[in-house]
């Protein structure tokens, strides 16, 4: 079985709607897979993008995540929440990618954080050029602060902040205990508070 595609995670999760959809995929219903894809595509891509900070790679890895979900349809058992399983696969792929290419890509990525992916607009259209520049500078600082976190701390923060996942779900995705997750989050936010304190 593919790593991270361990569907027997022990916890007796209630049969959520996503799990029901996945069981239909198991029975050969392609439309249910499309529904799962539509629902979870953006969160998975965004999570991977914030982990890796490379838009093209994050989409490639997200494709691999859904491909693994599809491949595992026949062996799927809804013993854990679907999103927990999904983010376990995504985290595993992201951590592997970061570890495999750390030496070659790490420095390059940090040097070129702002030049990747589609250009985002400042939310308020009435802002001046100076405000827009300030916004970009601050955004760059946030990206660098996240990128500087150790990989597991980074994954824990992103799942906690953006995916609003519970400690137990993050623990399953990272394959560690809940107390380890609390410790990871506490240390990560401590680092971020120190690095971003000047933005007050």
């Amino acid at each position, binding site marked *: *079985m*593919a790593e991270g*595609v361990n569907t027997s995670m022990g916890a007796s999760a209630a049969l959520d709607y996503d799990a029901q959809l996945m069981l239909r995929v198991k029975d050969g219903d392609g439309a249910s897979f*499309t529904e799962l*894809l*539509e629902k979870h*595509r*953006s969160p998975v*891509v*965004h999570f991977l*993008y*914030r982990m890796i900070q490379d*838009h093209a790679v994050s*989409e490639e890895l*997200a*494709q691999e995540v*859904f*491909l*693994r979900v*599809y*491949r*595992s349809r*026949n*062996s799927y058992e809804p013993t854990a929440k679907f999103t927990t399983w999904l983010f376990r696969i995504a985290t595993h792929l992201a951590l592997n990618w970061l570890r495999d290419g750390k030496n070659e890509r790490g420095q390059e990525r940090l040097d070129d954080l702002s030049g990747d*992916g*589609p250009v*985002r607009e400042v939310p308020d259209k009435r802002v001046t050029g100076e405000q827009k520049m300030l*916004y970009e500078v*601050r*955004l760059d*600082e*946030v*990206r660098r*602060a*996240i990128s500087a976190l150790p990989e597991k701390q980074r994954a824990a*923060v992103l799942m*906690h*902040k*953006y995916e*609003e996942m519970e*400690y137990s779900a993050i623990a399953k995705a990272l394959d560690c205990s809940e107390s380890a997750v*609390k410790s990871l*989050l*506490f240390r990560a*936010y401590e680092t*971020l*508070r120190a690095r*971003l*304190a000047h*933005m*007050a």
Partner: protein
Amino acid sequence: MNCPIRNEDTADLLLAYTARRLDPVKTALLEGHMHTCKDCAEFRAGQELVWRALDAWEAAPVTPDFNRRLYQRIEAEAAEPWYKRLFTSPMAMWKPIVPLAAACLLVVAGFVLDHPNNSTPPSPQPTFRVSVSEADQVENALDDLQLLRQLDSSATSGSSESM
């Protein structure tokens, strides 16, 4: 209320408070505590700053052809021959066994190389025979050499006499 920041077990209450994931009763208790506790109030201010900074980081939208590319990959995989699918299928339960099997093979090979005589049981009789025949062969060879020397010397003396 005990100061949550000084207790490892309750420190996550402050994170949950900033994330607005604390129930109303605990929220009220914590807010009351933060009016008098400078450390917790500072923690909250710093954490809310981080929260706002992270809120500002919007990820780029997913490219429109994401689904199409994924379905292409799924179709391409389905069209592959069965033996190629064996390597990508999550049902390939044998994959984790490969390193174990390789390790076992190495151990067995190492044992066999380390104990080369163990594989053939010792048989004293053939060893005895071999040594006897070898001695005979050596003796015969020495006899032959002696005979050759005698022939050689007799031939030399015969030729000198004839001269």
